[in-house]
Each structure stands twice: as C-alpha cells, then as structure tokens.
C-alpha cells in the first residue's frame, strides 16, 4: 500500500503527531510505502527546529527529521498554514523580510496541491487531527 498521511495538529498539544509517527513506523515495518506526510493547520509546528522539550521526553520534531533521513519520506509543510503560524524556511523568511527562519531538517514548505496530489497518487489517505 502507498499512503499519504495528513497531520493536522502540532506536537505535544494533541496526540495526532504521535499517533501518526507510530502508524508510519508500523506501516514501514510491514513493507508499505509512505508517499508523503503533509502538515496542515497547527501541524506545521511539527517542523520547527527550535523545540526543546524536557530531556526525559520525546523530541517529536527530531523523530520526524529522523524518519525523513532514514526512510527518505517526503515531509511537506503547507505554506499558507506555515505563514500564518510563523514557520519559515530561509527563502521564505528572506522573501517576507523576516530576521529568522525556524524550519527543521527534512521538511520542505510547499502548497496545498501537494496534499491533493498525494491523495490522488496514494492507495490510502489517513487523517490525524483534532
């Protein structure tokens, strides 16, 4: 099976990101393919590299970056939702005349079309949200 995963909520605030990560790991272990993970609404905050949770707890953003690195998974952050919430890559920050960027490695910022394309190309689209 080829999956597109939609993550609608930010890390820690809701369980959505954790459930998505567990689902994806289980799917990969079974030999399925994750076509794309698309982050929308507060889900874009999964892509912030500035998160510093307590040392005895999981670092969700790093878990995503590692997933991207180890399995080549396409992590896409919606640009419109990211702009609203202040999630920037270097190019976008420059375009907006902002003095910083905060995107974590392994994520890329793109348009909502990537979600639709994912749903068209995949066998299953799973939504994790609130």
């Amino acid at each position, binding site marked *: 099976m080829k999956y597109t995963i939609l993550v609608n909520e930010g890390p820690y605030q809701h369980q959505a990101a954790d459930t998505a990560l567990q689902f994806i790991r289980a799917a990969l272990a079974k030999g399925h393919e994750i076509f794309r993970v698309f982050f929308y609404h507060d889900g874009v905050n999964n892509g912030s590299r500035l998160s510093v949770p307590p040392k005895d707890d999981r670092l969700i953003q790093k878990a995503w970056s590692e997933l991207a690195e180890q399995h080549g998974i396409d992590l896409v952050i919606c640009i419109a939702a990211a702009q609203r919430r202040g999630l920037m890559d270097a190019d976008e920050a420059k375009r907006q005349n902002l003095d910083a960027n905060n995107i974590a490695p392994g994520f890329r910022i793109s348009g*909502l079309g990537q979600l*639709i*394309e994912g749903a068209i190309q995949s066998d299953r689209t799973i939504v994790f949200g609130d």
Partner: protein
Amino acid sequence: MDMTTKTFMYVNRKAPYGTVYALETLEVVLIAAAFEQDVSLAFIDDGVYQIAKGQDTKGIGMKNFSATFKALGDYDITKLYVERESLAERGLTEDDLMPITYEDADDDWAEKPSVQVISRAELAVIMSEQDVTLSF
C-alpha cells in the same frame, strides 16, 4: 492533465470562527479545484453553521470568509450536501442557509442551487462511495 480522477469529499463538522478548520478547509477545497477531481462538500453536525446566512463578524474582529462559499460554483464545485438531521437538531431550516448557486454549462448556463439538503441515510451512502474523505 493526464491523471486519475478520484471522488473527494470534504467533511465539515465544526462551526466557523471558534476554530480555524472551516476557513483552512475552504482553502484546501479551492486549491483542490485545480486538480479536476470530483469534489463535494458535506456539512454535518455544527458544520451546517459554516454556510449559515447573515454572518456578521465585526463584533468578534475576525474576517468573514463565508462569501467564499459562493465562489465555489466558479471553480466547478457544485455539490454541497447539508444534512437535514443536523439542521433540525440545531433548530435550523434550509432558509437559514446562504443561497449558493452555480451556472450549469450543460444547460444554457442556467443558475442552479449547489446546496442539497439530504438525509443522514442518503449522505451515509454518498460518503461510502467516495475514494477520499478528508476531515479537518
């Protein structure tokens, strides 16, 4: 564009303004229109409030985006299903909904209603026929 055509249903169950979901779902729908898929919207539970007429948001200081629903017809999105039971549970009727229409190119551009008030049972069948159901 040589691409598979799938049926997409956007399920709206939340009232507007209390959360961002109504607004940002509409943004997905508008982008999705460019992909020439078979798109419909379902308004159930509190989602029926998203297309209530007469939304006045001045007092809450938020942007009134309800007019955007009226533009859906121009994007070839002409199937807006509203669940009858969801209206009734909330003391609403079809009269409380915004008039949303489209121009039917196959019928001499006659203006037709996009909103279809249907029963829960009918909507359940339509949902079961979708390739992709997106909830936000």
